[in-house]
Each structure stands twice: as structure tokens, then as C-alpha cells.
């Protein structure tokens, strides 16, 4: 991954949402949704982002796509900085990056037909005429495992898994190099989930796609990701190869997270160490290490000093004073 520039490179990305209150929309504070995140994604690589609800996973994805404007940091696509490109300048890059959302119901316009949904990106980018477009759409349908006969149906006539396939087909329409998959299977049934995951893996192999795979399902993450970033309150606390992370978590939060996953095998029933307490609010995150109020091994230092994400043994990155 050294020679060609990474498909996506994010450096010190920050996104602080202003909180406005009242009728005069006065600024009363910020949600520190993403608070200094750096990573890169290589060709045909899947990076997973895991973490609890509200820790900023989706925000990272959206910011990379410039669907929301980052507060600070840079985003590079194939080595080009796109952080400050105008809407117009963004257009060519839009074709390289796409997104698939969690909610298969809300992510398709209920008033458009499936083929229009899939074909629309082609149209707005002026790719192909009407006839070619129809062909391409049909091909996309086949590629994601949908029957082209259903092309004229409305989204509500599809099942959740099929809808997710339409979403993927739409994302693939522009032949992107990189897809942000924001919890693409969380809303799906287990039996359907496998279909979608397999499809994603297949596509990655055949098209060399890179994924930013956002999820809170660690099992799925382990299955699909090459590397995993564990986020907590807007920061990456641990970043490692999947196998390493699952085999030997370094950060206490990662440990707790892994411990909390129920394993679908009664034979493996174990006494778990369950982390207590709630996730703090990202509006006023705890000082120092964000995790210290819930951390079983926190020390005085954790309360005051922000631990940096530093490379540890075997190239893993951990943000903990103690590990």
C-alpha cells in the first residue's frame, strides 16, 4: 500500500456540529461528533468503523463524501485533496465515491421506480443515452442479483434485502472506487444479511472496490473487514488488523466491546465482564481520555490527559496511556 496513493486518506478530520437553540438560533455549544480522526483506505480494502451509537461513525462517512463539511482536517482521494473543492469541482470525484445507507426503507425515494433510482446518477452525470442507460441499469440489476423484470416496480414492492440491493446498484452505477457502507445490514434479517454481505465481498473482489464499512455488529465486522477502527466519542481509540484486534484487543474499551457481544453458541457461555455505565454525551465529553469514567483501569492521568493514537506493537494503533 505504499506506492500508489491510498484511495482515501483522512487526516485529523474533525466535525463539530453547532447546537443552536431557541428562536434566534443562538449557538449554545458544539457536538463533537468527530474529533480528530486519521486513517487511510487502500485499493480493494475494507476498513470497518465500530463503536457505540452516536460515537461519530456515520459522520466520518458523510464527511469523507463531503455530504457534510468537515470542521477541520483534510480528505484526499487518490492523493488529491478534496476538502475544499466546490460543489462543481466535486462532481468528478462524486463518481468515484458512493454511499449505501442503513435504512432500506428511507434510502430509496418512495416515489421513484427502481430503474429510475438506479439510472438517475447516470443521467445526471450525462453518461450514456437513454438506451444505453437502460442496458446499464439492467446489467446492474443482474450484478446485484435483482431480476430485471422488477425494474419498473416501486421500492415498497421490494423486500428489505432487495431494497438494499437497489441501494448498492445505485451506488455502483457510476463505477465508484470507494463505497461508504453505513450499517448496510443492520436493518436486515439474519438470513438476508448474509446475501448482502456476500454480494459486497463479491463486488469487492470483482471490481476492486474499497469500503468504509460502518457497523456496530462486531461479528459482521470481523467477517468483512481487513482493518478495524474502534471509535469512542468522536475519536479512534484503537486501529488494527481485524484478526489482531479480535484476537488480542489492546484498548480497554475494545475489550469491553468484545466482551459484550453475545456469541451464538450456548457451548461458549461464559461469565462476562460487563462494562457498566452509559455512553457520555458528545456535547460535553469527559476531559482527558473520553473513556475514563467507564474504564476499569483508569488512572489519574486518564482524567486529564488526552491519550494519542500511537502505534504500538505489530503496527497497531492504540490510544491509551496504559497500553
Amino acid at each position, binding site marked *: 500500500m505504499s506506492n500508489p496513493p491510498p484511495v482515501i486518506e483522512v487526516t485529523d478530520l474533525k466535525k463539530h456540529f453547532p447546537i443552536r*437553540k*431557541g*428562536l*434566534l438560533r443562538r449557538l*449554545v455549544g458544539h457536538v463533537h461528533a468527530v474529533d480528530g480522526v486519521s486513517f487511510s483506505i487502500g485499493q480493494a480494502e475494507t476498513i470497518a468503523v465500530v463503536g457505540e451509537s452516536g460515537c461519530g461513525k456515520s459522520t466520518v462517512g458523510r464527511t469523507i463524501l463531503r455530504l457534510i463539511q468537515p470542521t477541520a482536517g483534510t480528505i484526499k482521494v487518490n492523493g488529491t485533496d478534496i476538502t475544499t473543492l466546490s460543489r462543481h469541482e466535486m462532481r468528478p470525484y462524486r463518481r468515484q465515491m458512493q454511499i449505501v445507507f442503513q435504512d432500506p426503507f428511507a434510502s430509496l425515494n418512495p416515489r421513484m421506480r427502481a430503474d429510475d433510482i438506479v439510472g438517475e446518477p447516470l443521467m445526471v452525470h450525462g453518461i450514456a443515452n437513454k438506451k444505453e442507460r437502460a442496458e446499464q441499469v439492467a446489467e446492474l440489476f443482474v450484478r446485484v442479483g435483482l431480476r430485471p423484470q422488477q425494474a419498473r416496480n416501486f421500492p415498497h414492492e421490494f423486500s428489505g434485502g432487495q431494497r438494499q440491493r437497489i441501494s448498492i446498484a445505485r451506488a455502483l452505477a457510476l463505477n465508484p472506487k470507494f463505497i461508504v457502507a453505513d450499517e448496510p445490514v443492520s436493518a436486515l434479517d439474519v438470513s438476508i444479511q448474509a446475501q448482502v454481505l456476500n454480494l459486497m465481498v463479491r463486488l469487492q473482489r470483482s471490481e476492486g472496490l474499497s469500503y468504509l464499512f460502518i457497523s456496530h455488529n462486531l461479528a459482521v465486522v470481523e467477517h468483512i473487514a481487513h482493518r478495524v477502527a474502534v471509535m469512542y466519542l468522536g475519536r479512534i481509540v484503537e486501529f488494527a488488523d481485524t484478526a489482531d484486534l479480535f484476537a488480542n484487543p489492546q484498548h480497554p474499551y475494545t475489550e469491553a466491546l468484545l466482551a459484550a457481544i453475545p456469541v451464538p453458541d450456548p457451548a461458549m457461555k461464559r461469565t462476562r465482564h460487563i462494562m457498566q455505565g452509559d455512553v457520555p454525551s458528545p456535547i460535553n465529553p469527559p476531559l482527558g481520555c473520553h473513556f475514563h469514567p467507564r474504564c476499569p483501569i483508569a488512572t489519574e492521568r486518564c482524567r486529564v490527559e488526552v491519550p494519542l493514537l500511537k502505534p504500538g506493537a505489530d503496527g497497531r494503533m492504540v490510544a491509551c496511556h496504559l497500553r
Partner: protein
Amino acid sequence: MGSYLIRRILLMLLTLFGVSVLIFTLLRLVPGNIADILFDAAGMIDPVEKQKIIRELGLDQPLVVQYMQWISGLLRGDLGFSYISEKPTIDEIAPRIPITASLAAMALTLSVITGVPLGVISAVRQNTKLDYALRVFSLSGLSLPSFWLGLLILMGFVHWFGTIPIYDRNNTPLEQLAFMLVPAMAVGYRASALIMRLTRSSMLEVLRQDYIRTARSKGVSDTGVNYDHALRNAVVPVITIIGIEAAFLIGGLIVTETVFNIPGVARFLVEAIRMRDYPIVQNLVMFIAFSVVTINLLVDLAYSLIDPRIRITD
């Protein structure tokens, strides 16, 4: 809370400023002016006299100056003089306000005490005969033009009692109240219907909520579910409608005061518009707008009392 109020009040002032500009401009767009109307009654026009009057009333000044004069007067509490009666505007408006206000209050009270319970009953008995009957009743209230309803009521009075209620300032307060009841019902019917409809749909909406199912799963009786759990939640949106309806009522009162010949501000406003009596119209409109925004503020405050989710802090 304090600073919230201050901000709300600032916003109210902004709105009122907008209203003042709007009404001032609209009125100046109206063809014809007070001088012509004054002459009209005499059926003659004397250009020299007309100029004199226009000058006397300051209507020859540039509009901006006129506007500034009005607003600065308003801020000093000086509402100017009616063009028609030449009496201070305040003396013309002030005595009429209690009449309209009490009529509106009465109509609103009537509509709330009928609308809310009927709405609840209609929702609880959804799709029964009773529900259909109540819905037809409420939709009728929204469909009958209030002036027609007023006329029919008057016809009924003549037919059955051989008399009609006439507003008389010399009545005792009790008689006055009794008199007001009829027009209050005529306008209140519409408001009642609206409130009932809203209560019904709000109630139905609430009854579908998960927490209602939770209550049922605890073994709460239907009555408990309906009145203890649902109604409380259902009235929240109804309160807004009461605020909005208060503004609407003034519209209804214009025709009702005309039909029942009640010397309130609503009818007075129409007369004043007709007569281009700008000082009256402008100040009265400002008063109405002021009442409406104040009511809205009160509604919002009431909201926060009823619904703990709405916090009025900082």
C-alpha cells in the same frame, strides 16, 4: 427562563414591526382617501377644502414621515385621533375591546368545554354510530357560514320568541352575559368543531402510541388509558389550536358582530377600513396582532407546563 422570555418578546416586537409596515403599506394602496370619504357623505367635493383637510391630517407628508409619526406616537402611547370622529383613537377603541374580548372568551370557553370532551368521546368510540354523529356535527360547525348561522338563529328567535336579542349598553352584567351567549354560540360552534376534530385525531394518534400499549399491558383499564394516559398527551396539540383559534375567532367575530349588531372592535375594524380611518385601522390591527402574538406566547408557556419535554431554560 428569563432570557427566553426576553428573546421571545424581542421576536414579538419584530413581528409587530412587520405587521405595522404591512398594514401601513396595504392601507396606502387602498384607492381613495379619507378626504374623499369625508366629502362623500356630503356628496360634494371642493378641491380647496380637500387640500386643507389633507394638510390638516398630515396626509400630504411623505409616507415614511407618516409612518414614523405613527410609530413614534404609538411608542409614546399616543394613538392619534380618529379621522372620522376626531376623538382620540384610544377613546374609540378602548371601550369596544372588553365587548369583543368577552365575546371571544365566552366563545372560546364554550368551544373548549364542548370540543375537548366530544373529541375524546368520538376518538374512544371511533367508527361507531356515535362517532359518525359527532363527526358530522363537528363538520357542520366548520361548514356553516357563521353569518348564516347567525341569521338563522335570529330568524328562530323571531319565530319562537317574537323578539331578538339586541345589545344594549344599559343592560345589567348578567343580562349582558345572557345576550352574549347566543352570538358566542354562533361563533363558538366553529371553534368547538375545530377543537373537537383536533382532539379526536390527536387522541387517536396518541392511542396508537407504544406507551398506550404499555399501559394496557400493565392492566390499566380503558378509562384509565383514555383519560389518564391518552388525554394528557392529546391535549398538548389542542392547546396550540386554541391559540390559533383565538386569532381565527376575530375573523368570525367580524361577521357575527355585524349580524348581531354588537359594537365590538371586530366590526369596528371593518367600518374603519371602509372609512379609511387609518389611525383606527392601524392601531386596531396592531392591537389584534399584539393579542395574537401574546396569546401564542402564553400558549407556548402553557406548553412547557404541560409537557416536560419542552424545556424553557436559559
